[in-house]
C-alpha cells in the first residue's frame, strides 16, 4: 500500500549553518494516527514545514500518497491539510471568509466552499462566530478555526503541529474526540505535541526525533512494552510510623502518609498490597508517578544526547 507520507533521506541545513535534519527517513501508513515527538528544536517543525512546502529542503525526497512533492507538487498538496503551531490567518478577516478563501486556493468553487465552511465551522463549534473578525476569537476558537480551514478541501492527510497547545482540558478532550472521529472516517493524521498523554491517548504509531535524527519509530504499544518499571504513589489512610518493609521493591517515604514504590512489570502490584495489609497499612488511593510515555521519551532523548556526546 502506498504510504500516506514517505520521507527519504531528508536533510535541512539553514543558512546560518545549523543542520536541523540529518537525513531522516519515515513512513506513515494510510489511516494511521501518528505522533511525531521531540524536544524543542529537535527538527519536528522543520520536517512538517518541508512537507507543507513552507521550508525549502536541502536534499531528500518527500511524497504524499505517492505524489512526489517536487515533481507532482499540486497533486501532493491537494492531499494535505496543515494546522500550524502559530496562528497564521488574517486576524481582520471574518471567520467564514478565512475558510472560504482557503477553499478557493484549492480550486473549490464558492458554492461548495460555503457549504463546506458551514459543515466544518458547525462541527468545530464556530458557526455562531462566522461573521466575527478572527481577532475577536478566544485562543481555543482560533485553533479550531485553523482546523476548519485545514479541512475545507477534505485532505486525506492532516498534519497538526501542537494543536492543543494552550487549550483548556475540556476543549482539548473535545478536540481529541473530533480528531478520533476524523481518523475513524479514514483521514490519516500526524500530530506533534508536547503533551505525551495526548500522543499516548490518540496515536497508534510514533516517531521520536532528536537533534535532527529519528531516534525511535515504532508503535506506541511496543514502545510502552519496553517500560520495565513503573513508579506508583500510594496515598495511605493513616500516618506512617516507620517505612514498611517490602522485600523486592524499592520504597521511599514522600511524607507521613505517602509512599513511592518502583514496581517491575513481572512482579505486579498484588504482593505490595498483600504485604502492606499484613503490616496494617491501608492504601486509600494510588496513581502513576509520571506518564509512562513521558518516562520513555526522556530516556530515549537522553540516550540520543549521550550518543551525540560520544560521537
Amino acid at each position, binding site marked *: 500500500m502506498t504510504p500516506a507520507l514517505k520521507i527519504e533521506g531528508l536533510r535541512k541545513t539553514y543558512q546560518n549553518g545549523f543542520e536541523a535534519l540529518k537525513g531522516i527517513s519515515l513512513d506513515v501508513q494510510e489511516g494511521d494516527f501518528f505522533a511525531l515527538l521531540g524536544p524543542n528544536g529537535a527538527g519536528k517543525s522543520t520536517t512538517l514545514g518541508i512537507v507543507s512546502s513552507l521550508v*525549502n529542503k536541502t536534499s531528500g525526497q518527500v511524497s504524499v500518497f505517492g505524489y512526489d512533492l517536487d515533481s507532482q507538487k499540486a497533486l501532493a*498538496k491537494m492531499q494535505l491539510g496543515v494546522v500550524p503551531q502559530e496562528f*497564521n490567518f488574517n486576524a481582520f478577516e471574518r471567520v467564514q471568509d478565512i475558510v472560504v478563501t482557503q477553499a478557493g486556493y484549492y480550486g*473549490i468553487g464558492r458554492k461548495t466552499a460555503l457549504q463546506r465552511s458551514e459543515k466544518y465551522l458547525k462541527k468545530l463549534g464556530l458557526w455562531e462566530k462566522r461573521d466575527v473578525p478572527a481577532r475577536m476569537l478566544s485562543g481555543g476558537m482560533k485553533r479550531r478555526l485553523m482546523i476548519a480551514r485545514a479541512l475545507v478541501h477534505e485532505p486525506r492527510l492532516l498534519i497538526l503541529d501542537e494543536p492543543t497547545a494552550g487549550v483548556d482540558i475540556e476543549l482539548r478532550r473535545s478536540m481529541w474526540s473530533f480528531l478520533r472521529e476524523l481518523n475513524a472516517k479514514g483521514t490519516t493524521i500526524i500530530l506533534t505535541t508536547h503533551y505525551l498523554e495526548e500522543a499516548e491517548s490518540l496515536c497508534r504509531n510514533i516517531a521520536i526525533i532528536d537533534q535532527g535524527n529519528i531516534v525511535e519509530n515504532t508503535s506506541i504499544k511496543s514502545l510502552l512494552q519496553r517500560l520495565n518499571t513503573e513508579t506508583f504513589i500510594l496515598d495511605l489512610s493513616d500516618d506512617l510510623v516507620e517505612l514498611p518493609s517490602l522485600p523486592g521493591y524499592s520504597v521511599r517515604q514522600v511524607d507521613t502518609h505517602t509512599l513511592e514504590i518502583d514496581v517491575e512489570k513481572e512482579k505486579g502490584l498484588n504482593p505490595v498490597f498483600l504485604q502492606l495489609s499484613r503490616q496494617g497499612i491501608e492504601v486509600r488511593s494510588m496513581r502513576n508517578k509520571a506518564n509512562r510515555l513521558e518516562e520513555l521519551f526522556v530516556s530515549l532523548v537522553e540516550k540520543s544526547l549521550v550518543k551525540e556526546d560520544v560521537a
Partner: protein
Amino acid sequence: MNSRLLFTAFWTIVIKEIRRFTRIWVQTLLPPAITMTLYFIIFGNLIGSRIGDMEGFGYMEYIAPGLIMMSVITNSYGNVVSSFFGTKFQRNIEELLVAPVPNWVILAGYVTGGAARGLGVGIIVTILSLFFTQLQISHLWITLSTVILTAIVFSLGGFINAVYANSFDDISIVPTFVLTPLTYLGGVFYSISLLPGFWQGVSQLNPILYMVNSFRYGILGVSDINIGFAFAMIAVFILLLGAYAMHLLNTGKGIRS
C-alpha cells in the same frame, strides 16, 4: 490543477484583495480623492490660472491626466506592497504556500488586486477632475491600455518591494524616496520641453515619464515622447519586473526558510 481550478484560485486572491482595500476604504480610497482634489484646487485653479496654456491646453486640463496617472501609480504600488507585506507579517502567506497554487497565479492575483485598486482610484480621480475641467478622450485604447499596463508595472514593483521588506519602514522607503520624486519629475505638472536640453535627456531616464505622456496622449492627443517607444518601455518593465518577481517567488525569498 486544471485551468478551471487555477482560475478559481486566481479569482479568490483577486476578490480577497478587493475585499481588503474596500473594507479599509477610509485608508485606501478616500485619501487619494482628497489629495487629488487639493492638487486640482491649488495647482489647477489657484496657481494654474496664472500659468497660462501648456502645449495648447489650459493648465488644469494639462495636469489632469498626470494627476490621474499619479494616483494610479501610487495606489497600485501601495496596495500590493502593503497587502503582500501584511500577508507575510501575519504569516497568512502560509495559507497560499501550503495550497496547490502555482507561483505565477499568486503573482497574477496580487498584481490584479493592485491594478484593481489603482484603476479604482484612477476612476475616482477622473470623476473628481470633471468638477474642475473637461476631459475628452482622444485615443480610447491608448488611454485604457496605458493605464492598465502602468497599474501592472507598479503592482509588480510593489510586490518585489514587499518580498524584500522586513519591517513596515521598508515598505515606505521606496514610495517616499523613489516613487514620489520620479512621479513629480515624470512630467505630471509640466512638459519636459520646458526643461534645458540636458535635463530633458535626464528626464528620459525616468520610466514614469513614458507612462504619464502616453496617458496624456490618449486623453489630450499631445505627448513629449514617441508613443510607440513609450509602449515598448512599459512592456519591457513588465517583462523585467514580472520575471524578477517570479524568480523571487520560485526561490522562496522572504517567504520560505
